């Protein structure tokens, strides 16, 4: 999904990747018994995830406003 030409689908694929990383951090914390540190790291990761998604969403909107498309294939073919 990250390889999709649709920019929003790319963001959704990135979201899934981050969730898998979150799951592995929680799993590692559960296995080692250090759930407090794992939760602290997950909270940090979620905050960063939200900020990245908000800025990326704003970028997609700006790209759509200037190019009237969110297809990355069409954006590459533009000159300038």
């Amino acid at each position: 999904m990250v390889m999709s030409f649709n920019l929003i689908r790319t963001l959704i694929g990135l979201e899934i990747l981050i969730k898998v990383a979150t799951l592995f951090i929680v799993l590692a914390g559960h296995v080692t018994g250090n759930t407090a540190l794992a939760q602290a790291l997950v909270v940090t990761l979620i905050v960063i995830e939200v900020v990245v998604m908000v800025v990326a969403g704003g970028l997609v909107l700006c790209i759509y406003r200037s190019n009237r498309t969110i297809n990355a294939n069409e954006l590459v073919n533009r000159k300038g």
Partner: protein
Amino acid sequence: MLLMAIVWTVMTPRLLRSVVGLAAVSVILSMIMFYMDSPLAAVFELSVCAGLIPVIFFTTISFTQRVGQEELIERKKIIFRQYVYLPIILAVVAVVMLLSKPVVDFVFPTAPVVQDVRKVLWDDRHLDLLGQIIIILAGALGIVALFKETKK
């Protein structure tokens, strides 16, 4: 169940359904986190990732172009071509994992003393909190810069 939700999110041709699938993935993940004795992370995941982020995606999708019927049919064909072998591959991997015996016996270490999450977050990981504040400020400034109206 998490895998099924992820596969559905990836394979569905409609964007809105993908976002709903993403929210479902977040809900299932938060349930897994509750089960793994991580309630704070589960609450954050449920409230932020299952609530706020789908709203951001819905807002972004609502401001972008509506997909036509022909493009939707074309997209369904592309998805079918890309993912037709996925169930077969998953079934083969599951059979191989069930039939093969583990080479290494994983010995999990004994659990250390359980610490309070708040103590770890505020005392041990205070630099992480500073980083979060800086990133939030950077994100807010970035959004302001992106949507700033230029004087003509």
